[in-house]
């Protein structure tokens, strides 16, 4: 059996890839995908803990996270579309009207 620590390490790596992606990427869609990756890393953590502890709560939590992520995706894409309509770019560096 694969030990718990491997799963935790994998999900930590996925989470970190997501964080780094959000920091260095400039395309809104890619940023958004990185956030989704972070959420899925969390799902992996929850599921592996749930299996390891023999407790069902973690798996239920994952369902709720997935539902929320779907709602977030819907709203996020709508926001991106309305920005694109007015600005015709997906580069976050060009969304700079409100800079200090």
């Amino acid at each position, binding site marked *: 059996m694969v030990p718990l620590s491997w799963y*935790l390490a994998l999900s930590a790596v996925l989470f970190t890839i997501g964080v780094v992606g959000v920091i260095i990427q400039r395309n809104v869609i890619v940023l*958004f995908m990185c956030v989704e990756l972070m959420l899925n890393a969390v799902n992996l953590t*929850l599921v592996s803990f749930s299996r390891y502890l023999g407790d069902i709560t973690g798996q239920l939590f994952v369902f709720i*996270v997935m539902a*929320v992520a779907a709602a977030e995706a819907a*709203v996020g894409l709508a926001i991106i579309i309305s920005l694109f309509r007015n600005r015709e770019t997906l580069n976050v560096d060009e969304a700079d009207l409100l800079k200090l």
Partner: protein
Amino acid sequence: MQLETLNLNYWAIAPEVIVSITAVVIMLIDAFSKRGAHRANATTAMIGLVLALISVATLGRVGVGSYFAGMVVIDPIRIFFSITILIVAILVVLLASQFLSDEGLPPGEFYSLIMFATSGMLLLASAGDLVTVFLGLEIASITTYVLAGYRRYDIRSNESSLKYFLLGSFSTAFLLYGMALTYGATRTTNLDGIRQAIASGQIIYPQLLMIGAAMMLVGFGFKIASAPFHLWTPDVYEGAPTIVTGFMGTGPKAAVFAAFLRVFVGSFDVPVEGFGLQLHNTWITAIAVIAILTMTVGNVIALSQKNIKRMLAYSSIAHAGYALVGFVTGNFATVAFYMLAYSIMNIGAFAVIQILARAGDQKTQIADYSGIGFEVPGLSFSLAVFLMGLAGIPPTAGFISKFFVFTNAWESVPALRYLVIAAVINSIISVYYYLYPIVVMFFRPLNPGFVRPRVTRTTALAIIPDSARHLLSGVDA
């Protein structure tokens, strides 16, 4: 688990249910009526909120305790924060009608989004489990992302919404990762269960709990806009429609503070020998550092702002810092009262700014306020009252709430008195930028071409009692 032990009691979630049903009803009214169902929408929203307020008042009869297998709790914190949230929602609904008709925006969605956001915030304030904290937080956040972008054809509003969305979901992921690690370390997501696990010293992996708590601190820190996680705040607050800025600076913030208190003071704060004490010391120190940083960053940057919405954004960062001072004492009541007073002042200030800014938020520079003091005395006087409240000048509720938080922290935690000293110095700095718009309003010449703004009856109904209550609650307390 037997069905009886789940403790299902629908009265325990009555406020949330009422508000969500109202939101759906508003959507239906909007779908089935012709254009101009504005009044019907607003009235329905108002009825829903008042009913919810009544059901919050009756929560005490349902009985203090936890319901739905510990997912939802009834306690004084929930009741107090729910009242704050509902007052905010009522004020926003009163103010929204003028905003929506001036800007020609569709009313149905706005009211139902406000209602959904309110139901999420109420759920957040009543959460007894990390799952409910997450769910409530996301219901409140996702609807607020949409509200920030409500002025769909305005590029500033789009940008504000996009920034809020990206950074908001980024921070949610941190919070969630923290929750997952906490679950792994304690074997439960129930806040009471976590407390017991720490108290009994049976933590499976103490390091995991430490990392989990740190991650959750980052997540909550983003949501309440504390430094160094505050960078999104000024942009989002400036770009969003003013009324929405008022809403998101008060309601969601108060609700997140409720959950933050519950998780950190309620669950993680178990100073028993060994790991509990170590966790306690670590997070208290972290909160103290964050509080000082937040106050200082907020106040110092606010000094140089030319735009009043941006200035109030930094001021709201500073206020999050003052409220965090209340955390170290572990006293719920001072933070709760602080958030109530702050919400009333802040939403009042944004209401006046909304009217003076006109459609499209054109006049939000402090220079635009030059000399209007005697031209529109009602609005200027109200704004002056709110700003003095935010500064914490004596006869107002702002002063009393600050006084409670600071004296409580001073007396109960002698080791952290430097925190109170920093807070007082910060309050003194803040007086400068709060008084500056008042000076500009009353002692500068009037800009040529100033046109008196229109103030509708519902707007006046929101602002006048709001400022009166604000002054009176200071005198009473």
